C-alpha cells in the first residue's frame, strides 16, 4: 500500500482513542456528579445550619427578656409559658411576656404547624415554625394563640423556619439538685404566710385611758392579728402577764409569737409596723428618722399605741427543725454563700443567741440578706419565734412627747403588722429554658445511609428516621435573667 494512503487511523488506534475518550468523559461526568452532589449536600447543610442559628438566636433573645417589667408597670406573673406536645407528637410551643415600653407589653409566641402541600398529605417530618408578637394587656394561653387569638393586637405573625422535624422546650434549674430541693435560688421568692401562729401571751388592749380614740383599732391581742394584713388589728401582750418571757436572756420580757411554716423557708426580709397614727393627732411621718426624736407630734399621736417596738427573732432552739444551714465553720459572717451550704447541720443560732435589735418605727423594712450576727438569711427553717420585747409610747408633757412609756410595767408589748418575705421551698422556679430543634433537609441525598444519629432524643421526645434526608439538631439553653435575679 502506498505510504501517502497511510495518513489515517487504524481501527485499533480508533478503538484505543475511543476507549481513552470514553474513560475521560466518564471520569469527567463522574467528577461532575460528585461535585454537583456535594453542592446539593452543602446547600442543604447550609440551609439547616442557617435556619437553626437564626431561629435559636431569635428565640433565646426573647426568652432572655421574659419577665422584664418597665418601671411602674404591674409585675408579670407567668413570664414564660410552655406547652408540651408529649412524647408522640411534634412539637412543643413557648410564649414569653415582657414589656417593650411602659405602654406596650409584648407576648411573643413560637409554635409549629404541620405543612400540608396543596392536595397532598401532611408530612410529619415537615413543620413550619411560626413567630407571633402581640400587644397585650392580659396574657393569652398558647392554645388561644394557636387558635388565632390576639387578632386585633397582633404586631407580626411570620413563618421563620421550614422543615422542622422537632422543637422541644424544657424549663429547669441546673443549680438545683432536684425540683423543690433546698438550696440558694432553688425556692420561690415570695411573701411568706405562716401555717400556724400562736402565743401564750395574748392580751386585748383594755383599760387604757384614751386608747383608740378614733375607733380605728378593731381588735387586739391575738398573735394572728399581726399576720392578718390589717394594721388596724394588733398583737398585744401585757407585760404583767406571767407568759411574757425574756428572749435569750434579754433584760426585758417579751411576748413570744411562735410560727410554723408548711414548707421550709429562708427569710430575707421582714417588714413590721406600729400604728401611732390611729390614736389621732398628727406626726411628722412614720419613718425612723421622723419618729425617733420624739418631737413635733400633736397629741395624742402615739400616746396610746406604740411609736416604737423592738423585735427579736429566735430559731434553732431544741426541737426546731433546721433543714439546711450555712457551714459557718468554713466561713464567717455574711460571707456564707450557696457554695458553703451543707445539709443536716444544726442551726447556727441556738437558744443562747439571737437576732436582736429589729427596731420598728412606723413601717420598717429590714433586709436581712447582710445580717452578720445571726445569719438568719442563710438558714432554712420551718419554725420561728418572734419576740416583741419592747414597745414604746409617748409620754406627753405640756403637749410634747418627751420620752417613752418603756418602763411602764403595766403597759403592753404590741405590734400591728409583721410581714415575712423570703425563699419558699417546694417548687423550683425555672430559670433556664433549654431549646432543642431538629431540622431536616428539603431534599434526599444519594444512596448513603442517612439514618446515622437516629434515634435522637430531644426533650421528652425520641425522633427516628430512615430516609435519605440530612438532619442536624441544635440544643442550647438560656437563662431567663429576670427570673434568675429575682430568686437571688
Amino acid at each position: 500500500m502506498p505510504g501517502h494512503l497511510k495518513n489515517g487511523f487504524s481501527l485499533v488506534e480508533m478503538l484505543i482513542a475511543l476507549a481513552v475518550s470514553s474513560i475521560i468523559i466518564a471520569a469527567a461526568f463522574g467528577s461532575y456528579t460528585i461535585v454537583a452532589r456535594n453542592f446539593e449536600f452543602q446547600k442543604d447543610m447550609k440551609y439547616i445550619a442557617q435556619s437553626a442559628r437564626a431561629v435559636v438566636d431569635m428565640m433565646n433573645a426573647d426568652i432572655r427578656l421574659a419577665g422584664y417589667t418597665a418601671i411602674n408597670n404591674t409585675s408579670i406573673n407567668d413570664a414564660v409559658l410552655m406547652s408540651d406536645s408529649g412524647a408522640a407528637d411534634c412539637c412543643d410551643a413557648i410564649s414569653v411576656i415582657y414589656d417593650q415600653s411602659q405602654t406596650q407589653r409584648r407576648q411573643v409566641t413560637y409554635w409549629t404547624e404541620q405543612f400540608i402541600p396543596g392536595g397532598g398529605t401532611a408530612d410529619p417530618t415537615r413543620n413550619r415554625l411560626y413567630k407571633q408578637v402581640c400587644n397585650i394587656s392580659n396574657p393569652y394561653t398558647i392554645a388561644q394563640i394557636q387558635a388565632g387569638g390576639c387578632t386585633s393586637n397582633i404586631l407580626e405573625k411570620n413563618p421563620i423556619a421550614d422543615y422542622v422535624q422537632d422543637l422541644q422546650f424544657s424549663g429547669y434549674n441546673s443549680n438545683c439538685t432536684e425540683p423543690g430541693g433546698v438550696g440558694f435560688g432553688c425556692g420561690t421568692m415570695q411573701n411568706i404566710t405562716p401555717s400556724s401562729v400562736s402565743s401564750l401571751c395574748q392580751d386585748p388592749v383594755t383599760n387604757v385611758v384614751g386608747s383608740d380614740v378614733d375607733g380605728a383599732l378593731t381588735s387586739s391581742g391575738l398573735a394572728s392579728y399581726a399576720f392578718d394584713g390589717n394594721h388596724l388589728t394588733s398583737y398585744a401582750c401585757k407585760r404583767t402577764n406571767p407568759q411574757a418571757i425574756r428572749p435569750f436572756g434579754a433584760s426585758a420580757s417579751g411576748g413570744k409569737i411562735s410560727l410554723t411554716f408548711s414548707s421550709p423557708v429562708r427569710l430575707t426580709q421582714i417588714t413590721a409596723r406600729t400604728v401611732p397614727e390611729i390614736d389621732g393627732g398628727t406626726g411628722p411621718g412614720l419613718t425612723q428618722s421622723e419618729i425617733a426624736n420624739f418631737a413635733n407630734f400633736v397629741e395624742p399621736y402615739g400616746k396610746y399605741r406604740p411609736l416604737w417596738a423592738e423585735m427579736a427573732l429566735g430559731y434553732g432552739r431544741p426541737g426546731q427543725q433546721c433543714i439546711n444551714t450555712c457551714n459557718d465553720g468554713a466561713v464567717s459572717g455574711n460571707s456564707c454563700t450557696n457554695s458553703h451550704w451543707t445539709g443536716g447541720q444544726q442551726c447556727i443560732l441556738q437558744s443562747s443567741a439571737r437576732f436582736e435589735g429589729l427596731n420598728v418605727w412606723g413601717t420598717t423594712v429590714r433586709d436581712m440578706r447582710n445580717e452578720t450576727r445571726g445569719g438568719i438569711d442563710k438558714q432554712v427553717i420551718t419554725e420561728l419565734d418572734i419576740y416583741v420585747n419592747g414597745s414604746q409610747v409617748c409620754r406627753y408633757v405640756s403637749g410634747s412627747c418627751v420620752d417613752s412609756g418603756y418602763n411602764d410595767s403595766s403597759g403592753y408589748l404590741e405590734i400591728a403588722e409583721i410581714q415575712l418575705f423570703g425563699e419558699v421551698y417546694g417548687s423550683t422556679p425555672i430559670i433556664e429554658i433549654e431549646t432543642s430543634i431538629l431540622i431536616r433537609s428539603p431534599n434526599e441525598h444519594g444512596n448513603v445511609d442517612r439514618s446515622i444519629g437516629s434515634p435522637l432524643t430531644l426533650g421528652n421526645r425520641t425522633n427516628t428516621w430512615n430516609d435519605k434526608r440530612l438532619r442536624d439538631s441544635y440544643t442550647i439553653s438560656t437563662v431567663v435573667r429576670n427570673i434568675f435575679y429575682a430568686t437571688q
Partner: protein
Amino acid sequence: MDRTKLNKGQLGLSLLEGMVAAAVVGIGFVAVFSLSTFSTNILMSSIDREKARMLTSMIMEDLLTDQSTINSCANVCPYHDMDFRVTNSADTTSAKKQTKWHGHANKLFGAPSVADKRLISFEETTAATGVFVVTIEINSRNGRAKNTFKRTINAWAP
C-alpha cells in the same frame, strides 16, 4: 534514536507521553474531587464553629450566674482548667454546670474523641482586680475543628 526520521508518518503519542498525559488529567480529576471534599470539610467545620459559638455564649451566661464562685477564681477556681468532656457528680454549683455543659456539648458535637478538647480556663488580667479572661477551647471532628473563644468577665465584688 531519531524518531522523526524513522517514523515520519507516525504523528501520535508514545506510550510514555500518553501515560503522562493520563496522569496529569487524573491528577486534575483528583484535585477537583479533593476540592469538593475539602470544601465540604470546611463547611462542616464552619457549622461546628457556629455551634461552638452558641455553646460558648451559653457557658459564659451560666458563669455569670455564679458570681460568688467566680469571685474566688484568683485563688481556688473550680472553673479553671475545667474539662467538660467528663461529668462531675459533686454537689456544687460548678460541678452541676460542668455536667450540664458536658451534656450540651455532646448533643451538639457528639461524644468527644481523644483528640477533641472541651476546656475552660481562667486568667486574672491584673492581680486582685476581679477581671478575668475566660478561654474556652472546643475542638470537635476528632480534633480537626479547633475553636478558641476568649471573653472577659468583670467579677469584681464590692
